[in-house]
């Protein structure tokens, strides 16, 4: 009981802090960084569905992210409306996810990772080489941000709130997903695929649907990204972007709800801080990757939770033992 209230208090405080964030940081630069964190958190949460709960490590999610972004950006450039372009982008990313899933789910483990990597590279190759469609390395400009319910999202603060709303919906969807029977069956296919199969579950179908769910939220994050940046280039689809997304999931702690969010915050802040001082973000990314995998494979959130629980138990046990000692000595 006590932990549930503690948790709900923490959630309320976090939401209040996020909702009032533009009030206490007036600087637009920091508000923009907060928007970046939230939109990449959506991507990390989406990837975590496969990596954390499905045990399927994808290195092709930047491809899906870019497909949503490019579809919307190109349709907007062709003069279509925001609603149509965004819906078309979601449809495109769902179709792409289905194709990715059918091919990649021929394997699990390392095979899955290799196939998604190759598929992601195909998307990168298209974005980079098919200059007639995508303008190649020059990228695509997105002319403006939409107006939602009469509010223009052109400014940093309205855009932050729009991103926050999407982020909260994503978190709620993930929380429901994790607790749903479907989420449980996905975790089952991760831990005991054979038993799940023997119990009559369609392991392939469960993974396929999870891939679509993950692809959907990846697409949503891709849309937020092009509206935030108002530009998309092949770099977005590169292997490095997929690796960054994976680093967000792993560094925060996969298979937790909070982990990918913390991971996204760490990576975005690191990226901005490191890039401000040196041009060596790639090296920093690689080194952090190596350090986390070697020394803290569970990620920061589960690692900290473990330490916190150990400390908490020590605090609780100490008064109990002293009380017991005092009882013995009347």
């Amino acid at each position, binding site marked *: 009981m006590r932990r549930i209230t503690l948790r709900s208090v923490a959630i309320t405080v976090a939401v209040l802090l996020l909702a009032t964030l533009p009030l206490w940081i007036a600087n637009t630069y920091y508000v923009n960084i907060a928007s970046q964190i939230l939109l990449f958190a959506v991507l990390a949460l989406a990837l975590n569905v496969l990596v954390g709960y499905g045990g399927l490590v994808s290195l092709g999610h930047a491809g899906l992210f870019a497909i949503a972004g490019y579809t919307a950006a190109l349709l907007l450039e062709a003069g279509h409306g925001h609603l149509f372009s965004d819906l078309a982008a979601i449809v495109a990313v769902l179709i792409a996810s289905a194709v990715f899933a059918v091919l990649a789910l021929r394997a699990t483990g*390392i*095979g899955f990772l*290799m196939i998604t990597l*190759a598929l992601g*590279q195909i998307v990168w190759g298209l974005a980079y080489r098919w*200059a007639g469609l995508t303008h190649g390395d020059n990228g695509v400009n997105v002319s403006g941000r939409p107006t939602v319910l009469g509010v223009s999202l052109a400014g940093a603060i309205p855009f932050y709130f729009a991103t926050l709303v999407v982020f909260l919906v994503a978190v709620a969807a993930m929380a429901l997903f994790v607790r749903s029977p479907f989420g449980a069956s996905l975790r089952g296919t991760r831990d005991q695929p054979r038993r799940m199969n023997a119990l009559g579950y369609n392991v392939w179908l469960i993974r396929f649907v999870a891939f679509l769910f993950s692809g959907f939220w990846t697409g949503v994050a891709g849309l937020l990204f092009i509206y935030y940046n108002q530009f998309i280039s092949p770099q977005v689809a590169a292997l490095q972007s997929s690796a960054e997304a994976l680093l967000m999931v792993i560094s925060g702690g996969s298979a937790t709800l909070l982990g990918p969010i913390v991971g996204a915050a760490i990576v975005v802040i690191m990226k901005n801080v490191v890039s401000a001082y040196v041009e060596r973000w790639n090296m920093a990314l*690689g080194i952090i990757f190596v350090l986390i995998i070697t020394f803290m494979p569970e990620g920061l959130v589960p690692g900290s939770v473990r330490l916190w629980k150990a400390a908490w138990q020590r605090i609780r046990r100490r008064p109990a033992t002293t009380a017991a000692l005092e009882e013995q000595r009347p």
Partner: protein
Amino acid sequence: MSQWLTLAVNSISYGGLLFLLSAGFSLIFGLMRIPNLMHGSFFLLGAYFGVTFLAQGMNFWLAALLSAAAMAAIGALIERFLLRRLAGQELAQVLLTLGLSFVVADACLMIWTGDPWQPETPHAFQGAVQVSGLFFPIYRLVIVAVAVVIAIALWLLIDWTRLGAMIRAGVDDAPIARVVGIKVSQLFTLVFALGAGLAAFAGVVGSPVLSVYPGLDAEMLPVALIVVILGGSGSLLGALVGSFIIGFLYNFGQAWFPDLAYVILFLPMVVVLVVRPQGLFGKVVP
């Protein structure tokens, strides 16, 4: 017709280069069960070593061999001191090689700058031979010859020596190989070093044709990946056939559909995955 022949020669020489790159990748994948995501980095770093030696006025082949030896040593160190720590955790090992590939790419950019380096073709192999009115650049034929020599040497090593038999045993069933007294972990170090050396050698040999520039690693890695998915992991013959298929597809695709050349490379991989997931010459891993 003449354009076809020229394309075919280019395809074969590119295929030869790919074989040098992917033979090691395939052996590492077959034995250690991990795709070495820094294989492109070995290629790039080896090529940079090579152009640095060449800039000192060193003989071309000596530079290639020295670069290969240096890379083999680095590969052995990486396997022994980084990958070994994570033995048995294949996913962590793959991610480790991915992280290291970023470090290598950035270090190369820092040391050798972003400008492309293109060493001169060795003097003895400059120019072209004329065969019935068609000109073939000599150096491309030399690449093919080198690839054939190395392919034969690898085949002799794997199929006809005690060491090769041990590697094959490790590829087929590592636990049983251990039980019969083969030190599989030593094989890991050896094969990783061999693969790194071969990739570096390919990087130097390819540098007069491809030139060396940042991003070459990320370009070569997926190609090696496709070759191995296509040919089947741990199979030299698969790597050879896969390399030439990809060599032809790349050159003809580049000539006919320049926009989609990169995508065409991946199509046979997709077909193989759907029809024969273990690859053309791969064995079904239980």
